[in-house]
């Protein structure tokens, strides 16, 4: 089958996946044992697993962010919400709560509350998403620091730490959490009409209103989901280092999450979305980070490499770029 004959949907999903493979291949050149996966005490162990494991927080954020972006919005507060959720859970543990359900429930509740605030401001107040969520991006980190009194709250709680460092079926638990969230969201979006409504609101809010879709409620919902995902990511981050670092947890991760969604091919103007491709996007970003670490290039070049890689990946997805390449090839062929 030729590329031209592929349906647009397949074509769209092809490029992020190719991008990921190219990056992984680059890693093999840098460090030959990149693809080797060993089994140590019944656990998979290797760089590939690391990529997935480390991508988990951004992947979770990206899942929520995908829905938000599909409605034509954006959620800048996810990084801060991560910090809040981590701080709440840590606070509960240090405060003597041992029941894991309460600890996790507390974190999730914080996430939903944050999402509710965002969704309310965007949906019912009609404040522009970037600004509405900027409020919580700034204030949220303050709230997290307030909970922690600005310190890193270290804790020991075996069950909770399992979220970050545990293993299930030989895989790090964060990976499992991403899979579970993905499946749940996918069920919710594709087995009910919610996904359709989300895309409708993003494609044309005014037309959706005329169809009778409750666009405000849909917006409220997606921000709540985003808040929830951010809370899970925040708890993973806290569990991973056994401490809640309100100052740095999730710092600037909102940008990574947005980047992941866009690499996954979604438009920031809203409309069509694919949660799966956003996760691929998150994997690409993490693979890139690990490539940079492994490459041994001095850190001051990190950002330059990242910028170059992003542009290349974006160009790969651009149909106009394909056309240019085709034209170039044709011209080259004619000359020789």
């Amino acid at each position, binding site marked *: 089958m030729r590329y031209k004959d592929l349906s647009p949907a397949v074509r769209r999903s092809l490029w992020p996946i190719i991008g990921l493979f190219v990056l992984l291949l680059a890693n093999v050149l840098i*460090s030959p*044992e990149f693809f080797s996966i060993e089994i*140590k005490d019944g656990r998979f162990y*290797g*760089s590939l697993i*690391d990529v997935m494991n*480390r991508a988990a927080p951004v992947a979770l954020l990206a899942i929520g962010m995908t829905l938000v972006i599909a409605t034509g919005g954006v959620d800048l507060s996810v990084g801060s919400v991560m910090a809040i959720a981590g701080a709440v859970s840590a606070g509960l543990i240090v405060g003597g709560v041992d029941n894991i359900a309460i600890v996790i429930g507390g974190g999730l509740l914080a996430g939903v509350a944050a999402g509710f605030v965002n969704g309310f401001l965007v949906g019912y107040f009609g404040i522009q998403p970037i600004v509405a969520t900027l409020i919580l991006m700034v204030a949220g980190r303050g709230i997290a*620091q307030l909970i922690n*009194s*600005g*310190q*890193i709250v*270290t804790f020991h709680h075996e069950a909770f730490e399992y979220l970050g*460092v545990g293993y299930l079926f030989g895989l790090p638990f964060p990976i499992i959490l991403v899979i579970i969230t993905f499946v749940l969201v996918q069920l919710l979006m594709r087995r009910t009409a919610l996904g359709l409504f989300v895309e409708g609101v993003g494609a044309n809010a005014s037309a959706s209103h005329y169809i009778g879709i409750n666009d405000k409620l849909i917006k409220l919902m997606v921000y709540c989901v985003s808040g929830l995902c951010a809370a899970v990511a925040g708890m993973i*981050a806290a569990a*991973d*280092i*056994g*401490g809640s*670092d309100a*100052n*740095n*947890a999730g*710092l600037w991760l909102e940008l990574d999450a947005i980047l992941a969604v866009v690499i996954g091919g979604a438009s920031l103007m809203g409309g069509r979305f694919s949660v799966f491709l956003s996760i691929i996007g998150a994997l690409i970003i993490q693979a890139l980070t*690990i490539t940079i*670490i*492994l490459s*041994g290039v*001095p*850190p*001051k070049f*990190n950002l330059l490499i990242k910028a170059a890689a992003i542009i290349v990946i974006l160009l790969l997805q651009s149909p106009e770029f394909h056309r240019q390449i085709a034209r170039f090839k044709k011209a080259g062929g004619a000359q020789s």
Partner: protein
Amino acid sequence: TVGFSQVGSESGWRTTFSESVKAEADKRGIDLKFSDAQQKQENQIKAIRSFIAQGVDAIVVAPVVETGWRPVLMEARRARIPVVIVDRNVAVNNDQLYVTRIAPNFVDEGRKAANWLMDATDGQCDIVELQGTVGSSAAIGRMEGFNEVIGKYEGAKIVRSQTAEFTRAKGKEVMESILKAEGGGKELCALWTHNDEMALGAIQAIREAGLKPGEDILVVSVDAVDDIFSALKAGDVNASVEMSPHLGGPAFDVIEAYLDGKRDFEKWMVMDGRIFTQENYQDEYELRKSQ
């Protein structure tokens, strides 16, 4: 009234620093105007100018970066408000612009850490370095001091160096990858990190890779925050160079003396940190626990 312009609240160390300044001000009955710059120099400059506009009696600054202070310091001088620089250094060629600097010597901290490590390993060591934020003066200074010392030893070299942005989570993540890249890390001799947070993250990665931090891989860092003492006790960390966050006291001493008419201050009061190791940490550990 004293205005205090703080960098931000990017780490636990910084917060302890802010709190201790506030507590000290309370104790002495000083009316403290605290301003958090959220890691931005421009905010700090704004804050200082607003202190000047408010007509405070003295200003304490913990600068974000070393450069770029001359214009605003000159303005303070025109308004006859004394300025004390704490924590980081400032680079101005006219030392009349401030009363004194109470600051550590980052280069020296790097040297101390390196000297300790070279002693412990007889100068034979493959080292992994976790740098602080690219471009920060602490990272640059500590790197310089450390490299200067190990440059004298044939057998010591840095095999890998990456930034982990001074945070615990990044420390763990970066170390994890480095261990993989170094074939599991069995060949490595030591880890040198530009602050304790990164070390605390990295030791978890080392442990998860099946090695024993502090034995298989020696760990040396800077700051000596509270958490590092637990790690020293557990034997996960071998050494940490002290950098005291309790700068409020000395700063207010200087200000009080200045307002009493004293003028000839030493222009750089170097905060000379101790180095805590497995051998000497106990006393300090007990002391901090009791607080």
